[in-house]
């Protein structure tokens, strides 16, 4: 008893008085340069300065092959409003994001509940679902391209089953964007499974047993016991998938390169990169990038806040 009190006072005393440092400005500067500066310098040079440059360039008509560069104010942003390609890219990005968020979350939750057992079979299956998460999206894209392309493995199989004109999964302008979304959802599924499994393992068994004794059926138990306890897992998965969707680039570049037809699978990230590195319109690309960053920031902050509030209120 006295010992605990003694310890408490000691802890309080330490909290009140910062630990003595071998003081002085020069040693502090030395510590900073040694421990903090290397990381901060790299971060400043390759993230902070570029962000500032993107912001500044978005107000100019910078094009290295078409000088002189002039300050154009908000003209790039105004032009965005009437840019049909941008509207299509925004719509495509929203479609992809919506599909992968719903598909990977619903699928991930169902599979996590299916695999929530400790025996070897289920541990092995967890590994199976997680494998695509560890693979490069380039690799995943190439695998699915081989499957979904017109004379690919899927259509060969369908023809074998007697379907003479199987769909052009990647060549049909109305279909390609959904194929891309499906591929991304397939890759992200394992991430959701693992996060939901961690959430399920945090649900106390007593709670479910108590609800069961009180006469709650499996659906009621899920609705009132398990689901509320999974709120933090849902937050992680939704935010992660929203951001992944809005960043979608690799799959488009590898599989369709924006086509088929006129930009039917162009995403915002893809348009940013193409405008900068193919059309060399750095100024306009920067305005696109700024809008994209604003959306991602909005999702990260607002959606995260909203979902976390929901966690608390449940």
């Amino acid at each position, binding site marked *: 008893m006295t010992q605990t009190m003694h310890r408490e006072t000691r802890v309080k005393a330490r909290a009140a008085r910062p630990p003595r440092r071998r003081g002085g400005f020069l040693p502090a500067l030395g510590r900073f340069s040694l421990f903090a500066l290397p990381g901060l310098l790299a971060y400043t040079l390759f993230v902070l300065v570029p962000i500032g440059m993107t912001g500044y360039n978005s107000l100019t008509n910078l094009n290295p092959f078409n000088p002189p560069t002039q300050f154009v104010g908000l003209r790039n942003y105004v032009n965005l409003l009437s840019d049909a390609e941008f509207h299509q890219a925004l719509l495509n990005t929203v479609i992809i994001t919506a599909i992968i968020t719903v598909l990977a979350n619903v699928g991930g939750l169902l599979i996590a509940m299916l695999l929530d057992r400790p025996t070897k079979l289920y541990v092995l299956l967890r590994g199976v679902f997680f494998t695509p998460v560890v693979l490069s999206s380039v690799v995943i894209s190439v695998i699915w391209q081989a499957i979904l392309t017109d004379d690919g493995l899927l259509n060969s199989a369908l023809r074998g089953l007697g379907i003479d004109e199987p769909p052009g999964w990647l060549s049909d302008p109305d279909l390609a964007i959904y194929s891309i979304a499906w591929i991304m959802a397939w890759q992200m599924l394992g991430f959701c499974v693992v996060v939901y499994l961690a959430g399920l393992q945090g649900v106390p068994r007593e709670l479910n047993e108590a609800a069961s004794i009180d006469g709650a059926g499996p659906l009621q138990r899920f609705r009132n016991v398990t689901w509320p306890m999974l709120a933090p897992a849902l937050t992680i998965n939704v935010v992660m998938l929203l951001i992944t969707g809005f960043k979608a680039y690799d799959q488009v570049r590898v599989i369709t390169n924006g086509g088929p037809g006129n930009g039917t699978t162009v995403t915002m990230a893809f348009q940013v990169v193409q405008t900068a590195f193919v059309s060399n319109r*750095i100024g306009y690309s920067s305005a696109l990038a700024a809008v994209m960053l604003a959306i*991602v920031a909005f999702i990260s902050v607002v959606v995260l806040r909203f979902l976390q509030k929901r966690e608390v209120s449940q």
Partner: protein
Amino acid sequence: MNARPIVATFVGVVFFLPLYLVLVNIFKPSAAVVADPAGLPFPPTFDNLAAVLNRPDHLFTFGLINSIAVTALSVTVLTVFSAMLGHYLARSRHWAAKVVMGTLLCGLMIPVPVIMAPITTVLKWFDLMTTLQGLVLVNVGYYVPFGVLLFMGFVRGVPLELEEAAALDGANRFRVFWQVVFPLLRPASASVMIFLGVWIWNDFLTPLIVLGPDSGTTVTVGVYRAIGQYQSDFGSVFAFMFLATLPILVFYLALQKNFVKGLTGGAVKG
């Protein structure tokens, strides 16, 4: 009657089908890939793997060397820099430390395409465009917030008394960090290395732009370059991908055990 194992196995098999197709078709000649894509490779051929290793343009072998160099260097530098910075920020009581932390957190959500064009400008200032060093530096700058975030959480679990005791015994700041703190952060180092190793190995846009089309590239970008040439020769493409993925998969599986051990190791001390 318990349907769970049957349903679970069935769903797992369907999900795994695309990866199965890769694994079996690596060992088949082109004709067999088209005729019978799902069948087992019998008798197996190693021509596809040999062709990738013996490419006259060395796309795979040079890419592999580049990937190993870039990933190993980036991850090592990142582990050291973010452990030091994370420790510094976690222990600092200066108000500026909070501002720095907030700025780093913002960096976590910035998508690469947003800063890609200016990154090339910065690299040109230092004449580092199309060099492996340039790519390593970009990786370090971009991923340092993630490392710092992870290390800061762990540093808070290291008792300050340990550092004070070492300082009383006459160790300077540098020795306190490297001989007392850093070894205790091993689980954090393992997680940082797993995550960043996998991410950097798998990166596509950054090496594609930074290394450019003329000089060599990484294996992951090599997969992208290879598909254009092979067209629909799936066996060769799959073999290329398989070999490009194998090193990072081995790295992941090897470190993952360590990672779990590190986590549970701390739990026993109580």
